[in-house]
Structures are given as structure tokens and as C-alpha cells.
């Protein structure tokens, strides 16, 4: 299939990342299309998590970690001189492997904590954002009666959707997801997957998953990483039916290693 006409929302150029001496991401260049789900797959330790953590500059928060290269978000290099990673992270949200609502905060506060700590105090604004974000995360109906219960009192799947709502509350154009369903049961996983497909109308999603079938089910593009290298990147339908690279073929058919 042809490359889409729409320009990429995220353009990664020659991205390298290190943990101390170990070279975790090696010279990766890739263009991520807007309003689509891009899945990043690969065996454990292939650098896929490190790769997406570079996209919101969270990677550098780990001691001894370093990165070089360019990540261009709608025309701006987030690794450019004088760019504040804090501002970048408001535009590129993230959901983590384990559901991690903030302890001691209510459902309500969990959703708007980003806004509150950024100085937005107007109750009406916050209430609106809570409702919008929870609806976007398909959680509103389940929690609208207990907005003031602790976030940690929800079930695992609900907690993860709460985390998605929390990330969406600051209205980021891009949402990164680092194995968001690996700690959830199949039903909760199915709900999150459905949510992802729904969300891509509004946000661009980059999802790391160790579950190839999940990548196949929900993504439009798939990137296959191996030992820090980007081996293949293309339409999910072609990557999973006629991969261009022998190594991709071996991995997705389970003949690896």
C-alpha cells in the first residue's frame, strides 16, 4: 500500500539511546502517522520500551541514561536546544505497564491532577475535564457515582482506564502506551483494546506490546525492533502477512532464537 498523504505527526530521525555503556536504541528513524495506532513489537530487551520513552523524553529521567537524535513533533524537535521536557510531556502523554493511579488521590483528583498542579483551579473547568476525560476513557459510566472514592479502590482494568483518562486530561495530541494491558485479564484487555481503536480518531497512539496478536488486532502500523534496531516498519497487514525482512518473519512465526 502507498504511504499516506498526511504528513507524520512524529518524525524520529537517527535516534540513539543508551543506558550507561549499553546501546539500547540504535539509529532509529521512523515516521509516525497521525490518528493511527502504531504498534512497537519485539522480544524482551529489544529496546522497544526505551524507544517510546525517548519520544516524551522520559528515558533521560533514569540515571545514567542518555539519548541523541531528533524527534520532531509537528515541526518542533523535542531534543532541540532549550526545549523543556516538561512542556513536551504535556503534548505527549503516557500510560504505563502497571495501572498506577496516584495513591491517596480520589478518582476525580487523579484525572485532573495534571491541570491542578499546572495552576488550573476553576471548579467548573475541572469538572468538565473530568467528565470529558473519563468518557473518552470509557470509564465515566462506571465511576460517575464514586468520583471521590480513592483511585486505587477501582479494579485493575478500571485503574488502567483511569490512567488513560488522566493522560487524556491534558489533551495531548500523542499518547504513548507501554504494554498497557500486560497486567490485565483478557476481558479488561479487550476493553482497553476497544478503547484504543476508539481513541485513535482523536489522538495518535504509539503502543509497545509484547503481545504480537494485540499488535495485529489494533494497530495500523507495526514497527519490529530487535536488539535495539528497527528491523521493519510498515502497514500492520503487510508486516503480519508478507514481512519484508527474514528476521521479522522468524519472530512473528515464533521461530526465533
Amino acid at each position, binding site marked *: 500500500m502507498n504511504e499516506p498523504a498526511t504528513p507524520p505527526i512524529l518524525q524520529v530521525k537517527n535516534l540513539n539511546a543508551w543506558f550507561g555503556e549499553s546501546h539500547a536504541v540504535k539509529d532509529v528513524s521512523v515516521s509516525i502517522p497521525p490518528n493511527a495506532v502504531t504498534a512497537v513489537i519485539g522480544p524482551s530487551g529489544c529496546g522497544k520500551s526505551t524507544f517510546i520513552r525517548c519520544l516524551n523524553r522520559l528515558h533521560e529521567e533514569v540515571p545514567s541514561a542518555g539519548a541523541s537524535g531528533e524527534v520532531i513533533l509537528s515541526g518542533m524537535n523535542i531534543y532541540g536546544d532549550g526545549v523543556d521536557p516538561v512542556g513536551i510531556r504535556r503534548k505527549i502523554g503516557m500510560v504505563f505497564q502497571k495501572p498506577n493511579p496516584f495513591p491517596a488521590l480520589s478518582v476525580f483528583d487523579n484525572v485532573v491532577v495534571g491541570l491542578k498542579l499546572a495552576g488550573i483551579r476553576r471548579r467548573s473547568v475541572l469538572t468538565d475535564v473530568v467528565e470529558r476525560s473519563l468518557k473518552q476513557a470509557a470509564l465515566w459510566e462506571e465511576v460517575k457515582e464514586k468520583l471521590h472514592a480513592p483511585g486505587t479502590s477501582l479494579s485493575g482494568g478500571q485503574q488502567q482506564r483511569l490512567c488513560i483518562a488522566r493522560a487524556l486530561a491534558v489533551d495531548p495530541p500523542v499518547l504513548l502506551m507501554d504494554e498497557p494491558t500486560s497486567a490485565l485479564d483478557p476481558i479488561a484487555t*479487550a*476493553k482497553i*483494546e*476497544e478503547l484504543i481503536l476508539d481513541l485513535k480518531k482523536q489522538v495518535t497512539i504509539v503502543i509497545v506490546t509484547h503481545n504480537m*496478536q494485540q499488535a495485529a*488486532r489494533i494497530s495500523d502500523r507495526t514497527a519490529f525492533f530487535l536488539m535495539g534496531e528497527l528491523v521493519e516498519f510498515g502497514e*500492520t*497487514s503487510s508486516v*503480519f*502477512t508478507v514481512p519484508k525482512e527474514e528476521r521479522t518473519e522468524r519472530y512473528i512465526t515464533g521461530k526465533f532464537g
Partner: protein
Amino acid sequence: MISRNIDTGLSNLNQKLLTMAGHVEQGVECATDAWRFRNMVKIQEVYAIERRVNQCHMEVDAACVQLLALQQPMAADLRFIVSCIKINNDLERMVDLAVNIANNTEFYLQNPQAIHVDDLSQMSDEVRVMVREVLDAFVKADERLARRVLSRDDRVDAYKRKIVSDCLGEMKRDPSNIEQGMNLIFIAKNLERIGDHATNIAEDVIFSASGQDVRHSESLRKPPSEAE
């Protein structure tokens, strides 16, 4: 019940296959009409339809491969997709046979000599009904209707035997009938093959709907009315 991503894909596939089936039905009708009404225009129509069906054939295959590769279908979904792959093949073969009939008819019509065979009209009616019913059964996932199609196949086979022996008789009687006789035998043979593919589809519909494999088993293929 949560809505599933695979549902969109399945209904698209279903839609594609229905479109294709519609073309095939039309193709079979055009081919038989061409012979019956001595209509050369219908023959050209059959060729046009075949090209459309070939296009569908590839699209349906691609859709099935995508669904299998990306959605990990299970149980009813899996049976449906596997049946689609088989039905797709049968439909494509059916339209090829319709093209054969159109060819035979073209030769037949170029020759002014005529052999009168009553049963060929009835046979083509029967095959057309089979095609229509089996596609109906597929659309509605109607197991009962599919079983009825199975029983029609025996009648089609009987017609064919009758036509072949009639034609052979004519050909023996007057060797100048041989060419036309052969054309009619080919038409009957191709019609019978179309019926066989309709039967295959009926078996796949039964499998997709119930999970029961009725192929190669006389006791299982009986229509419900007889089995009861």
C-alpha cells in the same frame, strides 16, 4: 456484550462475498438464458461478469488472509472465515463454468442445425434454483435451506445422465448431429458441475452455521424433513 474490532472485518467480508455471489448468480442466469433464448448479447454479458467475479475473488481472499492474520478468529468466526475461503473458490469456479457454457452456446448458435432436448431447459432451471437457494442459505446462514440444496443435486445429476444418453442417441442416429450433440453434452456437463459447486457451498454453509461436517456422509446430508 462488547463490540469487537473483528466484527467490522467480518461484516465487510460477508458483504464482499455477497456481492460476488450476486454476480455469480447473474452469470449463471445469463449463460443459461443465452442458450435458451439464443441470445448472443447475454454471452458477452457472461464474459463481463466473469471479469468482475475474478476481481472479487482476489479481494475476498485478501480479506480472509487479513482477518486470519490480524484478528485471531476463533470458533464461529474461524468457521465463517474458513467457509468464506472455500465458498470464494466455488463461486469463482462457478462463474468459470458459466463462461464455458457461454462458449459452448456460442458454438452451438453458430451452427444452424438443432437437436431438440427438452430436459436441458428443466436442468438449467433446477441449477439456477440451486444457485439462488444456496446463496440465500448463505446470506441467512440457513442450515435447512442448505440441506434442501443438497437434495436437489441428485435431480440435476439425473437430468444430466438423461441428456447425455439422449444426445448420444441423436448422434448415433445421424452423425451430422455429432457437433451439436457434443455442444449440448458439454453444456449439460458444465451445468452439472455448477450444481456440484453449489452443493459444496451448501456443505460449507452447514459447517459455518452448525460446525457439522456433512461431506462424504450420506446419513448426515439428509434434509431435516427426512432426518426427523
